[in-house]
Every structure is written in C-alpha cells, then in structure tokens.
C-alpha cells in the first residue's frame, strides 16, 4: 500500500481539513482572537488530522500488504484466505467476510465438478469392463468358427481388435488424467512385455510382411507392466500403421535395448514414412494429428499424448526422433532402481 495513492484516495479528507482550518481561522478572526490562539488551534487540528490519517493508513497497510504478499507468494492463490486472520477494521471485515463466502461457494462448486469427474471416470471404467464381456464373447465366437468361415472371421477379428485398441486408449486416458495412483512399480523383464505386445500385433505384422526384430531385450526395468504394455502397443501400432510400402527392402520394426550406468533405454525403430520436422515437436500434444494423421485419416491424436502422460507418471523419459521418408525412433529411458526406492513408496494393497 502506497501513501501517495492512499492520500489521493482520501482527497475529501484533505479538502475537509483545509475547509475546517479556513473556517476556524475566519471564525476566530471574527471573534478577534489573539494570533497565538489561532496558531495553537490550527496546530491542534492539524495534528489530529495527521494522526487520524496515519493511524488509518498503517492499520490498513499492515493488513493489505500481508494480503497482497501472501497472494503473490502462494502457488495456489485460492488458498490465501487460509493464511489471513480477520482484520480489526470495519471495511476489512466486510471484505474478509465476502471473500470467505465467495471462497466457500467456489470450493463447493469445484468439489461438485471433482465429484462429477470422478463419477464419470468410474462410470467409464466400469463401462469399459462391461463392454469387454461382449467383446470377449465375440473373440471366442470368431475363434470357434475360424475353420468354418475363415474369410469372414479373419476380417471380423481385425475389426474386433481395432475396437479393443480404442477401448484400451480411452481406459488409459481416463487413468492418466486422474491424479490417483492405480499403478504398481515392480521389476519387469522387457523381453516378456515385448513378446506380449508382439503377439497382440502378430497378424498385422505378418500380413504386411514387416520384419520384426528384437535385440538385447533381456533387461529388467522398474515400471508398471500393464501401463508399459499399453505404451509399447501404441508405439508399435503406429509403426505398423505408418509403414512405408514403397521401401524396396521391405518394412522393418526393430526393438533394441541400450544399458548405461544410470539408465536403461528401450528403442523402437521403424523405417516407415517418418514425421515431418515441423510436426515433430508437437507429436505428444493433445489432439495433434499432423500431416501423417490427416493423410491416414485414422488418427485421433490421443495415442501419443496418453503415452507421454503415462511415461511422466511412471518417471520414464520418452523422446522421439524422425526423418521424413526415412525412419522414426521412439526411445523410453528407465532410470535405475534406486530412484524409485528412494522416492516412491509402493502402494500397500494387501
């Protein structure tokens, strides 16, 4: 609170003061008072006025300065009311009460939306689990009739798999957007996870004559196996989807692991159509589809966004490099175990 601005705000008080002084002096002149008396009365009035101004100024300054400072220093500014006590002056009290009321109603409103989001999340998760039952039935039916109707079942299986992939995407989207932890970090063998994802995509890989190679994958990393499986599946489906059929030596997906002192890096390389340099910095953005996404019209732009989100939650570093028409390389860096041992307390689920 600045004194100059405060005084300007109390301009009426200055005017009243000047008016009172003039009136008193005129009055005293009319009564023929002595000059000493005039000066004494003038000084008393001036002192009274100055002390009133200063007492009021400092009382307000102390309170409002604390208000402003606390607000500026807080990261969550809406919590500022919790740091202040009720002021001793009347206007302050009014403001304090009103802001407290506003705060309360805001908190209630936010809570309402939190609950609504939470309910929605729970409903979506439940719904996904429900819809997986008919999908499981369909998968079994298709498998049981494979010999009788090979053509139809093969095509249907392809589409059922697609439905399933989209379901996984929304399930992990819901999970990644919510703050609570539904993951468990443990030692996972990368080769096992790669095999699980490879089997899932086996038909597409074989059908499109993609050469699928895995090297040095016998490494253990600290992660949630289910989440990482989803992440890998997204990356590998992209590699399959954006393969380059014009490549003369055929399409390749190569997965290899590099270990160094402080981390283990899982690399997924493909010789597909690549990503234009201009699009590259934005591939992890929400709803970003880019040139490739438009050209292939199947992209929702959510896959890589969710992948990035999950990686951040798990404490893995994901990077992507690519040259258009040449290759794409996605790398996931897992930091060594002690990082988790020190910072993450595993959820006790028993």
């Amino acid at each position, binding site marked *: 609170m600045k004194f100059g601005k405060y005084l300007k705000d109390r301009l009426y008080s200055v005017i009243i003061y000047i008016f009172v002084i003039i009136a008193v002096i005129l009055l005293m002149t009319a009564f023929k008072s002595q000059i000493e008396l005039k000066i004494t009365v003038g000084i008393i009035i001036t002192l009274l006025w100055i002390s009133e101004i200063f007492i009021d100024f400092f009382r307000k300054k102390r309170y409002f300065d604390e208000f402003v400072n606390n607000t500026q220093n807080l990261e969550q500014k809406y919590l500022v009311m919790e740091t202040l006590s009720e002021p001793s002056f009347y206007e302050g009290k009014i403001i304090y009460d009103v802001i407290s009321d506003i705060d309360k109603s805001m908190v209630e409103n936010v809570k309402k939306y939190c609950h609504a989001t939470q309910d929605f999340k729970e409903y979506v998760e439940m719904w996904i689990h429900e819809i997986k039952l008919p999908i499981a039935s369909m998968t079994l039916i298709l498998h049981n009739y494979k010999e009788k109707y090979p053509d139809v079942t093969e095509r249907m299986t392809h589409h*059922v798999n697609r439905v399933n992939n989209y379901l996984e995407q929304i399930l992990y989207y819901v999970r990644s957007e919510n703050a609570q932890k539904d993951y*468990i970090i443990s030692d996972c063998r990368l080769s096992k996870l790669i095999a699980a994802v490879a089997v899932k995509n086996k038909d597409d890989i074989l059908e499109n004559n993609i050469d699928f190679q895995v090297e040095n994958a016998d490494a253990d990393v600290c992660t949630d196996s289910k989440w990482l499986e989803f992440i890998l599946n997204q990356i590998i489906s992209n590699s399959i989807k954006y393969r380059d059929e014009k490549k003369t030596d055929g399409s390749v997906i190569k997965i290899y692991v590099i270990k160094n002192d402080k981390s283990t890096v899982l690399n997924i390389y493909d010789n597909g159509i690549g990503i234009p340099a201009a699009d590259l910095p934005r591939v992890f953005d929400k709803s970003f589809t880019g040139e490739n996404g438009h050209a292939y019209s199947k992209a929702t732009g959510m896959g890589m966004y969710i992948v990035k989100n999950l990686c951040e939650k798990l404490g893995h570093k994901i990077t992507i490099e690519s040259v258009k028409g040449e290759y794409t390389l996605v790398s996931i860096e897992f930091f060594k175990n002690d990082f988790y041992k020190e910072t993450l307390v595993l959820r006790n689920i028993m």
Partner: protein
Amino acid sequence: MKKILIVEDDKDISIELKALLENSGYEASILTDFKNASDEILRNEPDLVLLDINIPYMNGEMLLRDLRQKTDVPVIMVTSRDSEADEVLSMSYGADDYITKPYNPTILLLRINALLKRAAASSANNSTFYRGMEILPQKGVIKYNDGRDEMLLTKNEMTIFMCLLAKKDRIVSRDELMTELWNNEEYLNDNALTVNISRLRARFKDIGIEDVIETRKGQGYILV
C-alpha cells in the same frame, strides 16, 4: 482327457469357452450353482479351474481364498479388470495365472496347456516320450536308440515340436504355431516357419524316422 471347470457368470462367454476348450481336446464343464461354489468345484474334481472375478454371491477372490484352503488345483483368474493391482491381489490369494478379457483364445489355450504341464511335471518327472525317443525340451535334446544317441534341436525347432507333441493326433494350425513361437520371443515370419518345419522333418529323417509331421492343406500340421 483333462477336465477344466469354467466358473463364469456370463452365459455367452461360458458357452463359447466350453466350445473352445472342447475343440482343443479338453473336457469342459460349466459351474451353474454359485451358492456353494467351492464345494461344487471340489465335487467336480477338475484338473484346472478358469475362475472369473465377477461372479454372483461372492467375488472370485474370496472364492479363490476359500478354495485354496481345501485344494491346490491349478487356477487361472479370468477378468476384465486389468490393473496391475488386481493381478497382484489375485496372485496373492493363490491364483496360478491371470488373464484379462478379452483374451486371445490361442494365448488362453497356451496358458492352460503350460499350467497343466507344470502341474503334471511336479508329480511326474520332466521328460516326455515320443516313438521311443526321450525329449528334454529344456536342454533342446532328443535322445534316441534307447538313450544312446542324442540329437540337438534349435530353440525354434524344439518349440514347434513341443507344440505339435502337446496336441498330438490333432491338427495344429500355422497360427497356433506362430503364436506359440512369438510368445516364446521368436519372431518368425511365414517363410521362416515353413523353413523350420521342413528342417525339423529333415532332422527326424536323418535319424531314420519318416513321416513325423504331416501337412494338412489349408488347416495346418499334425504329428503322427
């Protein structure tokens, strides 16, 4: 014939599951009375139980805990809940394996087969016999001439052979073989599978055993 009991409250799934298991040479039955589930399971004397988590009256985890106090029959938990926490929880109650819906049927069969084999291995010794040969899959070795001679197989050849042997006298599709190989981290393509099968045939021919693997056109292979 191995007996598998399906504990699942979704009728359509249990019917299709039964068909799947029966097509693969198992005897399958469906549990109908969920009220006394654990007694019913014991009465059925199955070799393996496929247990869903969401069943009426009590959940699958409670049933499993109950069951484990009475028997150590192999149990595969089947569920649409797929978080790591659910899996760890089920395993801690004594499930032998855990698979999430919707599952790849071939993978489910592989898991069942593996679990039954493991259960059998703990009661008998670990080697398998075929036409007087002793097969040691872990070592990649086949012993013949009453154990006097040995033949080494590559990992791929052994995986294919064991897959065919497990389903002896039944046709095994190329897709099944491929899934088994990929599941074992051997990422072969179609040509490589053909090459491996003809090589496997040649290996048996070398030691004087002919016509081991027959091709059934459009269907797959069969071990005779």
